[in-house]
């Protein structure tokens, strides 16, 4: 494979003011494809696996299930799979931030349940949370929201203060029921919960495992209190229902494809060539082009398939990309941007890598540690909106059960390290895809729940082992 593109583009633009820099020893700026591949293999051998094991696993699962279950690769099932995995994906994306610091948030699941039940309560009671909760509980609820706002202000996490205050306002004023207000309320309640968790971990100094284990139990109780034993709050609302069950129109689907894939290509290629122009370290051009082309083709095929009619009956027509796809994509893009292109994201990685070094570099470690819990709980609230919409109701078990375990599992299976400092947001998406595929495929194969749980557990164990082993490998890799 030739490498002319990258060579010419770096050769005919003499890097500015770099007489000395070209002097810079063996430093390589643009690699050839061969070098890049060798480099990648060396990194793999050094224990930097990234999402590779998860991707291989996903491919294996797809092959196994499609050969065993005829219905697996039907359009209806693929769309179903996306909707099933969406909420887990979103909660897992929030958890990635926490895991990057080497912390854990065990309360993300039940915290999302609290958000879901507040949202449902607000809708069902027509905005009268006080009536829904009872006076005492309502005042306690408001006091906690106010406390969260104050704690966030203390740590100068202004977004946390603002959103907690919004939740407080919506609750106190009694804004009439409106699906958009409810969703905003859910997210704001999530933020407030995160402020409290984060403060306990970062400022009070309780290990995150203990704080979130305690809160896991407490929030579970709160959900029960809000909804009542055996109660169910139905979400009888068009907008609310469509979040997880609606689809874009065919035109909308293609517009999404154009924006998402076009945007991706523009950003990746623009950045790549700008780096080459400035004589900076850049991967080989053919590799970048291949990557972009792969995304374009996959995106086009996926969009095309999802715009076909996938209804099982001839009476209704179901077409279009499900809404959850753009929701997950938007969150993925925003989160990735924050982690990789902003100062805040850099500091998150730094604190996860070496807290002491970050501290000496002048980073406010406590603030960073608190902020990741705020992000995690806010993401959990968005996940709560999606799963409540999928089911169409909120019951006392919302966010309980294995919601949390699947989310943590998704992040870890995708390649996020439990030891902190290593992982990307896309890991959560890949990992959630693996878990959703297992759940969906095993269901189609009519396996009992027992088997599904055991297999899911083993896969998680496998992923954690891969993480631990690759970490050990990295530690002994030649220096």
């Amino acid at each position, binding site marked *: 494979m030739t490498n002319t593109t990258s060579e010419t583009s770096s050769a005919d633009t003499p890097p500015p003011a*770099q007489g*000395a*820099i070209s*002097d*810079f*020893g*063996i*430093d*390589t*700026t643009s690699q050839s494809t061969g070098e890049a591949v060798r480099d990648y293999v060396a990194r793999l051998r*050094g224990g930097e696996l990234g999402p590779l094991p998860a991707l291989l696993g996903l491919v294996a699962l797809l092959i196994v299930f499609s050969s065993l279950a005829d219905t697996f690769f039907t359009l209806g099932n693929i769309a179903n799979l996306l909707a099933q995995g969406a909420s887990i994906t979103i909660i897992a994306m929030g958890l990635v931030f926490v895991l990057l610091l080497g912390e854990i948030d065990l309360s993300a699941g039940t915290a999302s349940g609290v958000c879901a039940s507040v949202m449902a309560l607000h809708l069902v009671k027509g905005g009268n949370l006080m009536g829904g909760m009872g006076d005492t509980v309502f005042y306690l609820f408001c006091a906690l929201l106010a406390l969260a706002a104050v704690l966030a202000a203390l740590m100068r996490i202004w977004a946390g203060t603002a959103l907690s205050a919004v939740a407080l306002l919506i609750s106190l004023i009694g804004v009439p029921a409106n699906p958009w207000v409810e969703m905003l309320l859910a997210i704001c309640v999530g933020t407030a919960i995160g402020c409290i968790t984060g403060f306990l971990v970062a400022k009070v100094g309780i290990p995150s495992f203990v704080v979130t284990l305690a809160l896991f139990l407490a929030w579970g109780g709160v959900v029960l209190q809000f909804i009542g034993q055996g109660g169910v709050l139905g979400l009888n609302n068009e907008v609310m229902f469509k979040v997880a069950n609606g689809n874009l129109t065919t035109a909308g689907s293609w517009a999404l494809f154009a924006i998402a894939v076009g945007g991706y290509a523009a950003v990746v290629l623009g950045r790549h060539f*700008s*780096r080459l122009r*400035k004589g*900076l*370290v850049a991967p080989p051009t053919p590799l970048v082009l291949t990557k972009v082309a792969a995304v374009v083709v996959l995106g086009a095929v996926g969009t095309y398939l999802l715009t076909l009619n996938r209804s099982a009956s001839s009476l209704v027509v179901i077409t279009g990309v499900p809404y959850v796809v753009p929701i997950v994509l938007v969150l993925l893009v925003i989160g990735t941007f924050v982690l990789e*292109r*902003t*100062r*805040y994201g*850099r*500091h998150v*990685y*730094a604190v*996860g*890598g*070496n807290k*002491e*070094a*970050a501290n*000496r*570099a*002048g*980073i406010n470690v406590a603030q960073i540690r608190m902020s990741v819990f705020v992000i995690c709980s806010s993401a959990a609230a968005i996940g709560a909106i999606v799963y409540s919409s999928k089911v169409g109701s909120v019951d006392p078990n919302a966010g309980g059960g294995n919601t949390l375990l699947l989310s943590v599992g998704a992040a870890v299976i995708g390649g996020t390290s439990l030891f902190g*400092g*290593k992982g990307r947001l896309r890991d959560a998406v890949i990992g959630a895809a693996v878990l959703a595929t297992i759940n969906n495929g095993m269901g189609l194969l009519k396996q009992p729940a027992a088997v599904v749980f055991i297999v899911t557990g083993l896969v998680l164990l496998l992923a954690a082992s891969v993480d631990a082993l690759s970490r050990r490998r*990295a530690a002994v*890799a030649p*220096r």
Partner: protein
Amino acid sequence: MTEPILDLRGINKSFGPVHVLHDIDFTVQPGEVTALVGDNGAGKSTLVKCIAGIHPIDSGEVYFEGEQVHIHGPRDAAHLGIEVVYQDLALCDNLDIVQNMFLGRERGKAGLLDEADMEQAARKTLTSLSVRTVKSVRTQVASLSGGQRQTVAIAKAVLWNSKVVLLDEPTAALGVAQTRQVLDLVRRLAEQGLGVVLISHNMNDVFEVADRIACLYLGRMAAEVLTKDVTHGQVVELITAGRSGDLGIARPESATI
């Protein structure tokens, strides 16, 4: 003799009842390597931490470039152009060289990162130090050797147009070849006109790179001498007994912590 870039006069420091530094006078000349030697517990690290603003001094005066300054915290020291390279490096393993060098002081507008600018600046600094051993400035620090890591830590200190660099045992954990690299780098820092303070236990290193040697004995400045005026044995005596011939404290036996 040129004006010292950093001049400490009569520094005292106690931790509770323990009087760690007794009337320390210490000067750092620009373009010179000053070795700070002394036995364990002699107060080397405490002195460095006082200069870096990590510990406030109890009494005494600090002059920087001829003007009296008051250092109240690490930020003040950094602002003056005093950088410390700590023994345990303070690098993040999961970040690459550029990211580590700019950690906490990233360039860019409105919270966004200007990677291109940072990469070029990092490369320029490494080039100016004639560092040729790292393959790429985008290599993760985790995959560097001990000497390379030390190099990155030192380059990080130089990046900020610093005027005084304090190195706390930079060669303690290194092999022969890597020690070589770091000592060369220390020399180059001085050649660029920086004031360099090298804390070391290794006499060979000290005699190889230092222009002057300052010897601490039980929290007192036993002697500040030119390297060429003393022998190996004299310095060892100064370290262990506080006195060697005419050099050193008048009555070391009466010195107490």
